[in-house]
């Protein structure tokens, strides 16, 4: 069996294992697992609106997943995507309501500013990583809290819409990311995500720069010996990863919410990271895993309404997947330490 096939097989096994444990838990709350899983399926793919709903949920997970992939491939564990998403979302919304521009241009400027905001936010941990070799896992995690609270501050104290919920004024329609269909909020963000995933995959496979980044990710000492400026490249990898994280936030505010609400999209950064890990850092694989998580989330919304099981059951399943994937890595690492290193540099 080739390595790639074995990896796919391992991840599938992890998912099946999680679903099996999930089924046992469902039995424990006196609900039928068959009914629950069928409702999940119906909720995710039951009709065209449901399919669009699944893709709508998939979009932020996919874009955050691509952001994580870029980091993972370059040997950088960007756990700060959540924060980059919040800042990107806020920045795009700000452009949307405060900066009147012609249609089309407005939206593009919004997305560009979101991207810049994400990159700027990760620049601090990236700088310390490059300059002082600070562990980027810790610093990016911590930057999440600051980002979420900072955007809360902006929203509540500086830009709050008078009356109503803690949210900014609505963005101007010129900044809307157009919807794809009339029956759903699904928008061009999905297309952006797909194009992004494909081009990142192409970049890593066919360009020498992509190769050199992968080299740094898998064997930094070797890459350095080969003449790659590892520190500079690590810095850039984090910057690009953060930029894509910011873009994810911009897509959410310009495409779906049309304003920024305090605490508007909790957890997508982490969902994206999990999707990327489950896909072993492959952007194409991330399309599949993001769709899987999107379908779970979308299906769970119907699950909550139509069965007695809680929507949170999918959070449990997601957590079980993470556990079993990590267990695999640990087991593999025992046999072949370099393979373990290559996958996650904890």
């Amino acid at each position, binding site marked *: 069996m080739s390595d790639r096939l074995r990896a796919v097989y391992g991840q599938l096994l992890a998912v099946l294992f999680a679903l099996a444990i999930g089924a046992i838990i469902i039995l424990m709350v006196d609900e039928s697992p068959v009914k629950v899983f069928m409702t999940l399926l119906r909720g995710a793919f039951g009709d065209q609106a449901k399919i669009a709903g699944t893709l709508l*949920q998939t979009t932020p997970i996919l874009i955050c997943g691509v952001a994580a992939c870029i980091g993972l491939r370059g040997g950088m564990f960007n756990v700060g995507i959540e924060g980059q998403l919040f800042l990107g979302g806020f920045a795009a919304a700000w452009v949307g309501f405060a900066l009147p521009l012609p249609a089309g241009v407005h939206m593009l400027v919004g997305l560009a500013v979101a991207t810049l905001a994400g990159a700027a936010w990760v620049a601090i941990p990236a700088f310390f990583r490059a300059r002082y070799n600070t562990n980027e896992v810790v610093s990016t995690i911590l930057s999440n809290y600051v980002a979420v609270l900072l955007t809360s501050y902006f929203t*509540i104290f500086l830009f709050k819409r008078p009356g109503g*919920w*803690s949210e900014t004024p609505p963005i101007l329609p010129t900044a809307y990311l157009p919807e794809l269909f009339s029956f759903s909020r699904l928008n061009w963000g999905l297309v952006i995500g797909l194009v992004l995933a494909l081009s990142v995959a192409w970049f890593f496979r066919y360009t020498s720069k992509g190769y050199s980044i992968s080299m740094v990710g898998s064997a930094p000492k070797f890459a350095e010996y080969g003449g790659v400026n590892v520190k500079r490249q690590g810095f850039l990898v984090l910057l690009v990863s953060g930029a894509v994280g910011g873009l994810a936030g911009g897509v959410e505010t310009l495409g779906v919410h049309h304003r920024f*609400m*305090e605490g508007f999209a909790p957890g997508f950064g982490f969902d994206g990271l999990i999707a990327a890990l489950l896909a072993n850092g492959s952007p194409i694989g991330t399309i599949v895993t993001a769709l899987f998580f999107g379908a779970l*989330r979308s299906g769970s919304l119907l699950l*909550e309404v*139509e069965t007695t099981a809680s929507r949170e059951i999918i959070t449990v399943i997601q957590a079980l997947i993470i556990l079993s994937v990590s267990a695999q890595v640990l087991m593999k690492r025992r046999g072949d330490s370099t393979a373990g290193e290559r996958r996650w540099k904890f």
Partner: protein
Amino acid sequence: MKKIISKCIFAGAALVASVSLACAQDKVSVAAISGYFAQGFGVSIVNGLNKAKTDFGIDLKLVDTGNRALDYEEQFANLAKDGKYDLIFVMGWELVDALQKASAAYPNQRFVFIDGVLDSDKMIYANFAEEQGSFIAGALAGMIESKGSAFDKIGDGKAIGFVGGRDIPVIRNFLGGYEQGSKYAAPDITVKPVFAGTFDDPAKGSELTQALYNEGADIVYNVAGPTGEGVMQASAAADKYSIGVDIDMCSTAPGNVLGSMLKRGDIAVYSLIKDEVEGHKVMPGTRTFDLASGGVELKVCDDIAPKIPEEVKAKLDEIRKGIVDGSIKVAKAK
């Protein structure tokens, strides 16, 4: 549905005709959707719903929204699409946007928005006169604070505090009533309000409360949902006073809680469902639950009540009567 029909046929065959007549009417189905059923006001609503379920045998479905704004619209659509529920209770201002869209998309679905009034005239609003209950809370806090060191645990700061969750209209309304009440009963006391900016951060609630105590406010009114758990804890830790909200919170910090401003979500949902079950179809419009109807009230904690001077108690009763008969007007916050 089939089950109900077959049951009814059975009942009709076995029992008198009146039973089958009752069965012929559709059973009332009610759903409730919120992200905050596990806390304060949400608990009160769930209690009312469960009581209605026991008393009237209604179908009841509780839906937890979680906290992702992306999910709300689909959740409303999933609930409303079959027209299965006669009434859908909605609690939480974060759901307003999705609610308005759902109400436009499913015009025949009756939604009950709990805790405020929106622009649309298609919905039913359960509106609470929280400003009236808060007026009494403010009057009590003001009068106790103005006793100074004559009252246990009170300093000479001449101030009372307020910790709000988010800066939204309903919380402003609490604050407005609290300020008016304090001014009415104890004009020399100032009110120091702060907003946590979140309903989900007890640590922040505790910090803010401690800061208010340090500034000389000895009594802090908690209007902050789960954030407010921190307010209650801080009052115990600093051995000062707090006032709870929504449900009876006297047991959270015995000896340090003066009272609780009860907002009877249970009474509101129960009475709406009762009307529906008894055949008075609930129609769009605003139902106000105020001091007179028992929708809001200030409950002084049992362990504190004996310490409160008689003239304060008399004054509180006088205020209560004044609000009910209209001689004291409590303004709503704009």
